Every structure is written in structure tokens, then in C-alpha cells.
């Protein structure tokens, strides 16, 4: 039997944990239906993150979404958050079974 996969986008945001709320609010505003989050450590332009105080960890947020909404979401994150927060985002292609969920 063959399963049909539909193409959607997987947006990943890695940011300082105190900025997670901002990202989720942006997703909310764009009516994104779901997301998955977890805590990570990391290193980047703002040095090593995750060793010190609890608030200095990073969060990783993964969002499966249709291509239509993608650039609006990225644009808002870029505009409102790139300057002030430790943050990295990237986009990949994935296939899903139940396209109606996203």
C-alpha cells in the first residue's frame, strides 16, 4: 500500500527561552494551528547559552504550516525580534499525511 504525502513547510525557530512567548504570540496572530516546543542549549553569536540561570536557556519551536502563511510569519519574527533577541530560524520541506490538520 502506498501512502500519499502532501508537501508542507517545517519552520524551526531556536531562540532564548524568554523570547518563546513572543514567537508563540506571533504564531497565534497568524492562526497557525499547532506547534511543538522543547528546551535546548546552544551556541551562537551571543555566546554559549544554557549553562547559567534557568532563564538563559534556549527554546526550539517547530511549526508545520502551509507555505501560504510562512513568509508572513517569518517576516514578523524578523522585523520584531531579530534585533533584540538571540534567535535563529530556518525552513525545511516535509511531507504530511493529513494535510487538513495544518
Amino acid at each position, binding site marked *: 500500500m502506498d501512502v500519499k504525502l502532501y508537501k508542507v513547510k517545517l519552520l524551526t525557530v531556536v531562540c532564548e527561552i*524568554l523570547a518563546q*512567548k513572543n514567537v508563540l504570540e506571533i504564531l497565534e496572530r497568524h492562526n497557525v494551528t499547532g506547534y511543538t516546543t522543547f528546551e535546548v542549549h546552544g551556541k551562537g553569536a551571543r555566546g554559549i547559552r544554557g*549553562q*547559567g*540561570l*534557568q*532563564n*538563559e536557556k534556549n527554546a526550539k519551536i517547530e511549526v508545520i504550516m502551509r507555505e501560504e502563511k510562512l513568509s508572513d510569519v517569518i517576516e514578523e519574527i524578523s522585523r520584531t525580534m531579530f534585533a*533584540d*533577541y538571540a534567535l535563529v530560524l530556518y525552513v525545511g520541506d516535509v511531507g504530511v499525511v493529513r494535510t487538513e490538520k495544518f
Partner: protein
Amino acid sequence: MEVLELIQSNLLTPIVLFFLFGIIAARIKSDLKIPEAISEFLPIYLLAAIGLHGGIEMRNTGFERMLVPMLVAIGLSLLFTINHYQILRRLGKFNLYDSYALASTYGAVGAVTFSVGLSFLRDQGVTSEGYLAAVLAVLEPVAFILAIFMTNMAAAKQLRAKKQSAGGDEIDVGVQKTRLSGVLRESVTGKAIVILLGSIVIGYVIGSEGFEPISIVFEEMFVGAIVIFMIEMGVIAGQRLEDIKRVGVFLTAFAIVMPTINGIVGVVVATVMGLSLGGSVMFGLLLASASFIAAPAVLRHAIPEAKPSLYITSALGITFPYNIIVLLPIMFAISTITHGYESIDLFRHMAGGWT
């Protein structure tokens, strides 16, 4: 000199020694670390213990006498925050955002510092007014609210100036307002304030008798729990030592001189208001302490433009050790004098009789 002796004897308590040990462990790049769940739980535990203790005390002594110290503390906190801002902005040449963030970090209070203070007094055989736990809770958000309000005012003003020259966007002003109210909500519902106030109320309700079955956990284990937390605080402070070089001479001086002034003013004012010897020390400590757990949580949302490396590093890496090692004994010595004891030694004798 007696103050030096007091500093020295304070230096040799488990709390201070384990803090210094944590710093050393971090410096030699040991992988020693208190697991996150434990070091996240300990402040909640410490605040619950402080709150219960304060509530029980308030039940015993009444809280009508709380009003004046509370209002004075709020007033001083606001005054100090504005004063910090002027100094940082004018003399320190920090930008608007960093100045307000730092000003409120030092206007706010540190719950961990407060815990250490209580334990220090216990070692000296002195008690303090229970309602100071309530002052701690109320003081938590005050300085932040002021600083956030002022920052937003200043930012709005800048915005308006821009708008007059070009076509302004209304939306951002709205964003500023939501930000402010959101931050107010958040800082009042922050876990530290919530557990502290809740525990005060519960302590008040249950009284000493109701406290009895939980006193082993919430009283007798208190100092041991601080010791464990101090290892982690030391490790984190030690990891930041490099950053201290980067905060610059001015901020380093600020992080030592400002708490000293605020703390001594606090001790004297508290004495005048009639607080006890121990209570005056704790009142001074409230004003001297800087916030390093609540501060990032609030300021990162409220003033994202400010550099957290500045306010966390100076509060945790410089002011906190200075306060618990040096300033606490100094304030104790001053409070001994303002309370009319001619020398600390004399006091000690008397204290010996009390315990």
C-alpha cells in the same frame, strides 16, 4: 576592629564558603552543577519558608505596624530607582534602555539575598520583624513597574518626535501600551511574588500550631537548602567572572557603592521607624539587594533593548557576593550602633542571654 571580625566570622559560615566554593568550581572548569530541577525548586522552597515564617510572625505581632515601613520601603525603592537612572545615564553614559534596566535591577530586591540575611541573623541570635517578608513581596515589582513605565514614556516621546518629522505608525504606540500592561500583569503574577504572598497568608492562617507538622521541612531544613542553592549560585557567578571585565569600571563601582549607600540609608531609616536591630538589617538588605532571578524574566520582555549581560552580571557577579559577604556584617554593625549598643561585643553578650 569589630566589623572586620564580623566580616571574617561571616566569611566562615557554610553559606558563604559554599558560594565561594561554587565560584572556584566554575573557575577550574569543573562539571559540578546542581541539577536544574533542584535549583529551580530551591527558590520556590526558600520563598515558601520565608513567607510561612513571616506570616506566623505577623499573626503573633499584628500587622498594623507594617504600614509605615511598607510605604517607606516603596518610596525609597522608587526614589533609589530614579536616582540610579540619573547616575547611570548621566555619569555612566549608558543608553536609555540599559540605564532603566540597571536602575530597576538595583531598585528591586533579591529573595536569595534576603534568605541569606535571615540565616545570618539566626547565627547572630537575633530576630527580625515578620512583616518584612511582605515588604519583600511588595517591593519585588515596584522598581520594575516604574522603570518600565518610564522607558515606555521615553520611547513614546522619541516615537512622537520621529512621527512629527515623518509619517508615524500608530500601531507601535499600541504595541508599547500592550507591552506595558502585559508586563505589569506578568511581574505581579511572577512565581516569586505569588508563592511569597501565598505563604505569608497561609502562615498567618495556620499560626505556629498549624506549622508544627511541617516545620522540619520549612524551618529546620532552611539553612541546609540555602547552602545547596549557594553552590549553584557560586557556579553561575563563577561562569560569569569573565563578563565582569566587560561591564566596565563604572558599573563595577556602581554595583558596590550604590548598594552600600542604599543599605546604610535603609538601616538608619528603619532604626528611626522603630524597627528592631535585626529588622533594620533586613530592611537595609532589601534596599541594598539587586534582583538577579526576577530581573531577567521581567526586563527581557519589558525592555528587550537592554543588554541582559549588563544587569545580570553586575547583580549576580558583583553585588550579590559583596552584599552577603561584606555589606551584611557592615549593616549589622551599623544597626548595632544605631540601636544604642556601644559595641558588637557588648551586644553579643546580651544576645547570648536571649537565646
